[in-house]
């Protein structure tokens, strides 16, 4: 194994110190990424710690395939989430993973709280603590990136991870932005950085990674590259990107519209991938090491109202999930309104998905009279009216007044105070993803280790079942989701982008590891995946999590899915089976 991978860099922000620990056994046994990360979290995160306390660690981890194989482009972050009060896990691409690996680290653990705002510069030589007082309070996360990019020279591959105002103000779903258009999006890592007075982390490296079997490595790289480039995957995610999902999900009635008052638009939705590409697509980007280039930037040309013939062009990244949360969930009809809202959300550094679901809840709660102008500070939210939404997210990021302060903590908290829990669309404390496909989607959101649609992709099972004209028993569905989530733990340990899950089946993962001199077979990888999943569940139970205690909002049963109406009972049956599978005695 490359010795660099086994190096864990520890940073103590309270004392502005750092040190290295060599952990070869940890990386040998748990590969890297999420497998290593959850162990470091078990070690370093005190039981019951307040997520915004200095003791809450942030673990960044990469894996043995990082910087060596195509689409091995992600960094895993683990922490205790201020949003759910439990396990926080978020994945980010950009240049982050390659920069960490080429700087010579497998993982970085950040603890403590700096007395003054700082940003960190991490290189092979260690950590520099830079004064960030002049960066604190800047209105845009983009500006922070530009300033640091100019100030910090340095050759090689570099990532700049930073927070916006939302992170500074500890909005529990504040994100961390990388390379302007990529994110550690979900579960509030931005607030954890904010709580540590940590404005940004710059990581740069240009180390070389030795490979055990060069001929095998080169051959395998070529094989995977050719497969990736020749696959439907590349075409699908390169051409239209994830927004290609808008049209098919609308067609089957699985696209949440107006806080899930409906599952489709009548007629063509205004934000299809096809329409956005034709009208707005300005540039595509890739994460470092990935040939797909799924990142799509819209070029939004806007006139300055007071000056004739004067325009500004803004680049706004768009993806399926933000289109759902800030577009369809808000009953949007106007793509430019959506793009402008998305742009503001990016500058403030908020998770677009949670943010959209919060705004959707506000709109419905306002319509139903649960909250009024007194709470909203005179703003009148209504479906598709973007100027009001833009003002609302500004107030959320600033936590202005009691109402916006609660909205800054997600729909669960807001609904506990004002009512409307039956249409507060969060699962395990995390706002839902854009798939009203059937029981699989919701079982994933409820049971997934990070309450993300990507944990076990139940939305995909639902769509398979729809095509096949069948419906699985909840227990069978639960077992499928458990296996899939276990398999994804392996990918997230190596660390491979989940878009490449078709390319990297477990035998292929084993062949990649063999070329690096690490013998792993399919069976061992699968066992590891299950074990990692149980270790996460163990952490969650330690921190007070209970599957049977999860709240299931009524709204999801009121609107039929493409697989028919949902019942709470079938979801509870699925959860009971998942609880059995996740219990330590099954391991």
């Amino acid at each position: 194994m490359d010795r660099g991978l086994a190096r864990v860099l520890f940073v103590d922000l309270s004392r502005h110190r750092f040190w290295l620990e060599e952990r070869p056994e940890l990386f040998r046994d748990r590969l890297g990424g999420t497998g290593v990360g959850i162990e470091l979290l078990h070690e370093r995160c005190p039981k019951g710690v307040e997520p915004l306390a200095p003791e809450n660690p942030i673990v960044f981890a990469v894996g043995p395939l990082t910087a060596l194989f195509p689409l091995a482009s992600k960094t895993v972050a683990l922490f205790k989430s201020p949003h759910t009060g439990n396990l926080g896990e978020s994945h980010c691409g950009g240049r982050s993973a390659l920069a960490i690996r080429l700087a010579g680290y497998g993982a970085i653990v950040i603890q403590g709280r700096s007395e003054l705002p700082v940003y960190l510069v991490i290189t092979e030589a260690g950590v520099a603590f830079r004064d960030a007082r002049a960066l604190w309070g800047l209105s845009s996360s983009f500006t922070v990136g530009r300033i640091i990019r100019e100030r910090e020279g340095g050759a090689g591959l570099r990532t700049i991870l930073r927070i916006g105002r939302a992170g500074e103000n500890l909005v529990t779903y504040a994100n961390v932005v990388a390379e302007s258009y990529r994110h550690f999006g979900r579960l509030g890592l931005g607030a954890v950085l904010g709580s540590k007075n940590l404005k940004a982390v710059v990581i740069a490296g240009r180390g070389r990674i030795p490979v055990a079997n060069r001929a095998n490595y080169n051959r395998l790289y070529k094989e995977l590259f050719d497969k990736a480039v020749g696959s439907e995957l590349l075409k699908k995610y390169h051409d239209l990107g994830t927004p290609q999902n808008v049209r098919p999900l609308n067609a089957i009635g699985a696209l949440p519209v107006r806080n899930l008052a409906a599952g489709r638009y009548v007629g063509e939705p205004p934000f299809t991938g096809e329409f956005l590409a034709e009208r707005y697509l300005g540039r595509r980007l890739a994460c470092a090491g990935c040939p797909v280039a799924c990142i799509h930037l819209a070029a939004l040309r806007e006139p300055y109202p007071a000056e004739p013939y004067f325009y500004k062009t803004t680049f706004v990244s768009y993806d399926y999930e933000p289109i759902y949360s800030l577009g369809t969930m808000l009953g949007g009809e106007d793509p430019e309104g959506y793009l402008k809202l998305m742009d503001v959300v990016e500058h403030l550094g908020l998770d677009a998905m949670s943010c959209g679901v919060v705004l959707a809840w506000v709109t419905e709660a306002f319509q139903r009279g649960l909250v009024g102008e007194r709470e909203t500070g005179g703003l009148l939210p209504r479906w598709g009216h973007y100027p009001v939404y833009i003002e609302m997210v500004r107030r959320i990021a600033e936590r202005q007044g009691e109402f916006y302060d609660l909205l800054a903590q997600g729909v669960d908290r807001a609904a506990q105070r004002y009512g409307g829990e039956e249409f507060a669309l969060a699962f395990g404390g995390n706002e839902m993803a854009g798939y009203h496909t059937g029981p699989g989607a919701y079982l994933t959101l409820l049971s997934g280790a990070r309450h993300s649609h990507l944990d076990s992709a139940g939305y995909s099972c639902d769509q398979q079942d729809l095509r096949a004209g069948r419906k699985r028993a909840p227990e069978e569905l639960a077992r499928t989701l458990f296996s899939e989530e276990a398999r994804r733990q392996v990918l997230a340990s190596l660390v491979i982008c989940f878009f490449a899950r078709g390319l990297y089946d477990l035998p292929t993962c084993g062949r990649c590891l063999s070329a690096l001199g690490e013998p792993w077979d399919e069976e061992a990888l699968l066992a590891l995946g299950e074990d990692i999943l149980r270790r996460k569940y163990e952490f969650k139970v330690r921190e007070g999590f209970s599957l049977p205690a999860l709240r299931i909002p009524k709204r999801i049963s009121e609107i039929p899915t493409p697989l028919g109406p949902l019942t709470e009972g079938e979801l509870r049956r699925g959860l009971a089976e998942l609880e059995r599978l996740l219990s330590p005695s099954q391991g």
Partner: protein
Amino acid sequence: MPGRLSVVDVERCVDCLLCAFACSRRFGEGGVARSAIAVRSVGGMERGFVVVVCRACSDPPCAAACPVGAIRKAGVGVRVDLEKCIGCGMCVQACPIGAVFWDEERGKPVICVHCGLCASFCPHGVLAFQEVAGG
């Protein structure tokens, strides 16, 4: 057949860096420590990229600047004689496009040899390896 590496359409570049990684794989290693090609953003990723690589000058300033004659002009581009090279870095200073890279570990320059490997891993038609008449 000798060939020359060309940046044919930089607007198509997505910053995947597969070219830089391919270059280091010549040595059977990961990373970009010994890559002779780099991609940089032009003031923010939304504004696009530049691909920095040797353009095979007909009168290469790097060769002219070398005080020990370690860089000589080849059919296409230049070749560095690493035995002769004293690691002074004059070639790096001399190249106005920044295409002389530096191998920190060895303290020697890295310059594209126009083998074309990177072009074969460029998925989006930014790079091309074109045959050169007469070599």
